[in-house]
């Protein structure tokens, strides 16, 4: 009898727990369900121009639409001032209200509150303050990121940036940075030469290859926001150098060194000691290293078994094994931020497509489908999208795609772009 009561009591507790969670809508990273969100027009205080409200809304809507977890309600919107129930009937699961206030000194404040239309309860409230220098669209980015954080448990990437190489004139390529929405283009190097292969550490330090001295050299920042200086070679000439990649702890750089016999090897440079250690065995081409998030394994491209294929090894060169099975040319591996997937490209009839290999399943999935060449994939910090270069609309432009390949969006109209990296903005 006592056991009966105890069991019932325990079940009741569990049931209560489950009921309490029903008012919270949480989408996991692997879920493909989308939350329908409606946004009322921002209320303005101290701002005359209604264009400000329109621009702000447009930026926020685009940020939320491109996350892949939110569907913005666009049609049959209830009139201004309608009760929450009307929004629920129109299909919105969350309703977002915002107020933009401009103080006398020009400082901006954004107040945002989201509410669950079914439970009619607030699910998110936050106030953002920015001074005159911060553009309004960055407030929209921060809000979008926090909404996604509330929804999925991981912050969004609307305020993130892409670092990439762009050709300025024949023989001159420099490194640039652009916001995820294509605005805010900034030039990061001015070597007046071929500058290639940028890599960004988690604290924002840059490293890359430049031919400014006539032969390739690896340059970078030793300190956050510090000056650019030469990392390698320390003396003399280093032969062919390419593909520098920061380790996750920012203390080592994997890179590729080629010799006069035509072989290329994966090397690891310890930044403090300046010593470089060779990991691969000196025959054939080994290139394009990519660290796993723990910093103890490296994926890379090698032609040791014929055409280029993707291989994995420990960060000391041991336990070398082949990852890719099908296709004659698989290259450009990029290990995902959580370590479960490796993106790469596969060439067919002269053109490349993006693939994602899921390590747990042991299977590869094709993402893009031969419209034109798609190269140089790099993961978004939230692991939901890949940035890559494509010729589909013009010469080598930056695009992003979700992992199904159904939402491919052009990030910028700039042409002549290559080697993108996706980094967190804040």
């Amino acid at each position, binding site marked *: 009898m006592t056991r009966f009561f105890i069991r019932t009591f325990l079940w009741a507790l569990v049931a209560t727990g489950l009921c309490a969670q029903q008012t919270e809508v949480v989408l996991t990273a692997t879920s493909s369900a989308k939350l329908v969100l409606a946004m009322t027009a921002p209320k303005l205080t101290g701002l005359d121009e209604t264009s400000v409200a329109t621009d702000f809304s447009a930026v926020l809507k685009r940020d939320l639409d491109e996350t892949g977890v939110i569907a913005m309600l666009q049609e049959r919107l209830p009139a201004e001032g309608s009760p929450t129930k009307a929004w629920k009937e129109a299909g919105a699961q969350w309703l977002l209200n915002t107020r933009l206030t401009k103080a006398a000194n020009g400082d901006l404040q954004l107040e945002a509150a989201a509410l669950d239309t079914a439970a009619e309860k607030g699910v998110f409230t936050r106030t953002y303050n920015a001074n005159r220098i911060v553009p309004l669209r960055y407030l929209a980015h921060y809000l979008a990121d926090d909404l996604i954080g509330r929804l999925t448990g991981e912050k969004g990437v609307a305020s993130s940036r892409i670092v990439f190489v762009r050709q300025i004139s024949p023989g001159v390529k420099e490194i640039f940075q652009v916001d995820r929405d294509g605005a805010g283009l900034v030039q990061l190097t001015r070597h007046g030469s071929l500058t290639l292969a940028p890599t960004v550490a988690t604290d924002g330090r840059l490293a890359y290859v430049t031919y400014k001295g006539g032969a390739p050299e690896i340059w970078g920042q030793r300190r956050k926001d510090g000056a650019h200086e030469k990392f390698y070679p320390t003396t003399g000439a280093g032969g062919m150098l390419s593909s520098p990649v920061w380790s996750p702890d920012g203390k080592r750089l994997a890179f590729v060194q080629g010799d006069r016999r*035509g072989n290329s090897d994966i090397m690891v440079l310890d930044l403090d000691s300046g010593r470089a250690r060779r990991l691969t065995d000196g025959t054939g081409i080994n290139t394009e290293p990519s660290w796993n998030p723990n910093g103890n394994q490296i994926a890379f491209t090698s032609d040791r078994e014929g055409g280029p294929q993707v291989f994995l090894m420990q960060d000391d060169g041991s336990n070398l094994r082949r990852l890719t099975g099908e296709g004659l040319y698989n290259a450009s591996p990029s290990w995902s931020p959580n370590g479960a997937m490796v993106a790469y490209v596969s060439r067919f009839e002269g053109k490349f497509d993006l693939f994602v290999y899921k390590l747990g399943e042991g299977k590869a999935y094709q993402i893009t489908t031969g419209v034109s060449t798609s190269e140089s994939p790099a993961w978004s910090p939230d692991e939901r999208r890949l940035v890559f270069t494509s010729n589909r609309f013009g010469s080598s432009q930056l695009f992003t795609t979700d992992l199904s390949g159904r939402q491919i969006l052009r990030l910028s109209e700039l042409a002549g772009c290559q080697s993108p990296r996706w980094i967190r903005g804040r």
Partner: protein
Amino acid sequence: MRYGTYLVPAAIVLTLGSLACKPPKTAEQIKQETQAAFNEGVQAFKDGKARATNPYLNDKENPHKAQGWNDGWDKAAADKAAADKAAADKAAADAKAAADAKAAADRAAAEEAARKAAEAEKAAAFKAAAAKALVNIHFDYDKSEIKEADRAILQGIADFLKAFPAAKVEIEGHCDERGTNEYNLALGNKRAAAALAYLKTLGVDEARFTTISYGKEKPLCTEAKEACWGQNRRGEFKLK
């Protein structure tokens, strides 16, 4: 006999006689007078008077003065002639020296010009030989082997390097666009290495070469067809 009568007339005769007869001049006196006349003659020549204006010509009693004057004049004349000749000789010698120096300078300038012309010709010949020899070789898709058709080009490069022992060359490896950026940098490196290895078998010291890869970063053309891709899959040779 009275001898005293002869005293007065004798005294008168002696006195008149001493008045009429001068004592002969001493050698010393004659020497001095000759020297004085000599100096006058020298001065007369210097004043530009003719030899015939010798004032002592008619002085029969002092022929040494006339002679002295002529000697003085002659000596002055001779001295002047000698001085003039010396000056003329010196002028001639100076002119000759100047002419010799100029001739030597002209010769030196001509030699220098000839040397520069020879050097310029040599440099032009070098450049022309380099332009003729250092042409591109090409590679097959995804390959780095040296093609049969390019062996003659590489032989030409080897011959050029043997003809000009100081020349150094950089070998560049390039690819077409149909590979990833980074893999193509490694493939370009392999292509440059293949050219280097072949040139080594032709007997050129490999220390005369540097190699560099540009992958697909420096294409010659950008069309997406084989005519362009074939051009881009190349090895280039540049004088360093």
